[in-house]
């Protein structure tokens, strides 16, 4: 039995922003619910009010903006990402990463905004978005601010999002369209499982970008390399930047070893 809370489903964005401002932390935003509902059941979250934002048009859709960057509405589900034509053609890494999350049932509900707001260190989609140098567009009644995803993440399941704010879109810079990519994820079983370590590599004509999951308090991005970077440089940087934990699922050493292995594999693949 879940604790008592009320459920509201606002009709427009402004109503949500006003609610969040007035409720001062008593409300939680609900999109797919695949993380929030689990936390409520476990007693980790005790909101008095749940604000369902799935129906709001401002948070939906995948489209290029005036500058040619791609804007993805925060309530777009993994299933919608996997089926989206633009993404399949220009950003297959997002389709690939979305398809690695959870199970079909979870992918039918889980959203891209929820994935980054949960800020799990092993987020598949978050790691891919970091490699793409994505930005997060955050709205509140006071206005809109945009910040890089790497700054949005601040710790294990912690983000810069304030209690009266909501993520409305995720922006992928235009130079990433059509980039070559590779993704490696280490897990215990083939199906539904969390990453023990994961690496995403993206290569355009001019730059090479790497992001690593499950090896630090948040998914991390390495500094941007030129496209002709040597493998040794990436391996060194990866070794320096990661700080994996020892736990029941994998040791620190094993995770670190697999990151090196994955970086090497992906580097060769993208040559």
């Amino acid at each position, binding site marked *: *039995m*879940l604790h008592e*809370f009320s459920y509201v*489903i606002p009709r427009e964005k402004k109503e949500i922003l006003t609610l969040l401002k007035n409720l001062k932390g008593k409300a939680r935003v609900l999109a797919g619910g695949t993380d929030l*509902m689990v936390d409520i059941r476990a007693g980790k979250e005790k909101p008095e009010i*749940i604000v*369902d934002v799935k129906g709001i048009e401002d948070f939906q859709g995948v489209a290029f903006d005036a500058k040619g960057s791609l804007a993805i509405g925060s309530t777009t589900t993994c299933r919608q990402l996997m089926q989206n034509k633009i993404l399949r053609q220009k950003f297959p890494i997002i389709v690939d990463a979305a398809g690695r999350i959870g199970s*079909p049932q979870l992918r039918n509900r889980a959203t891209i905004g929820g994935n980054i707001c949960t800020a799990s260190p092993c987020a598949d989609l978050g790691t891919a978005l970091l490699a793409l140098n994505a930005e997060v567009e955050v709205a509140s009644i006071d206005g809109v601010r945009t910040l890089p995803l790497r700054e949005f993440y601040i710790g294990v399941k912690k983000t810069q999002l304030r209690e009266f704010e909501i993520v409305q879109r995720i922006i992928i810079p235009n130079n990433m369209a059509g980039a070559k990519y590779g993704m490696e994820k280490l897990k215990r079983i083939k199906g539904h499982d969390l990453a023990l370590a994961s690496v995403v590599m993206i290569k355009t004509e001019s730059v090479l970008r790497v992001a690593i999951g499950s090896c630090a308090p948040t998914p991390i991005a390495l500094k941007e390399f030129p496209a002709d970077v040597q493998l040794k440089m990436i391996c060194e940087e990866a070794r320096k930047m990661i700080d994996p934990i020892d736990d029941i699922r994998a040791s620190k050493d094993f995770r670190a070893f697999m990151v090196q292995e994955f970086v090497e594999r992906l580097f060769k693949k993208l040559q």
Partner: protein
Amino acid sequence: MKIKVKVNGKEYFKDVSGNKTLLRFIREDIGLTGTKEGCGAGECGACTVILNGETVNSCLVLAAEADGGDIETIEGESENGKLSKLQEAFQKHHGVQCGFCTPGMIMSIKALLKKNPKPTEHEIKEAIEGNFCRCTGYKQIIEAVRAATGQLKRQEELRHV
């Protein structure tokens, strides 16, 4: 709040509290107890139902979120006491042992077959990756789906009996 849903083709108007999950709504308010609660955290898939054509873990969905929706559960499978083709194949190929995972398993496969009437073994495995079965080891379940879709060779029939 008042919600209106269709469950297995039948319309219901019900008053639900904000904190009621779709799973509890189906079991307690509609009285259909075929859908099970396993982990309650979106891991095991025992609570899988089809909501507006897509499978969901009904333990992670609020009944209020399903307002206006079309829900399919295991009770909608058989007609006038006659098992569906898929249910019959599960029975014949021993895809059911304790039976706890079966309602969710059938819902995941039903959703798969609607989009893909002749799935490969790999596609069947992918479709049920969110449904745990701790009895059968999955082999009989996959065999049942292949049989129900006319893909089982004769010598393979009843391999596990």
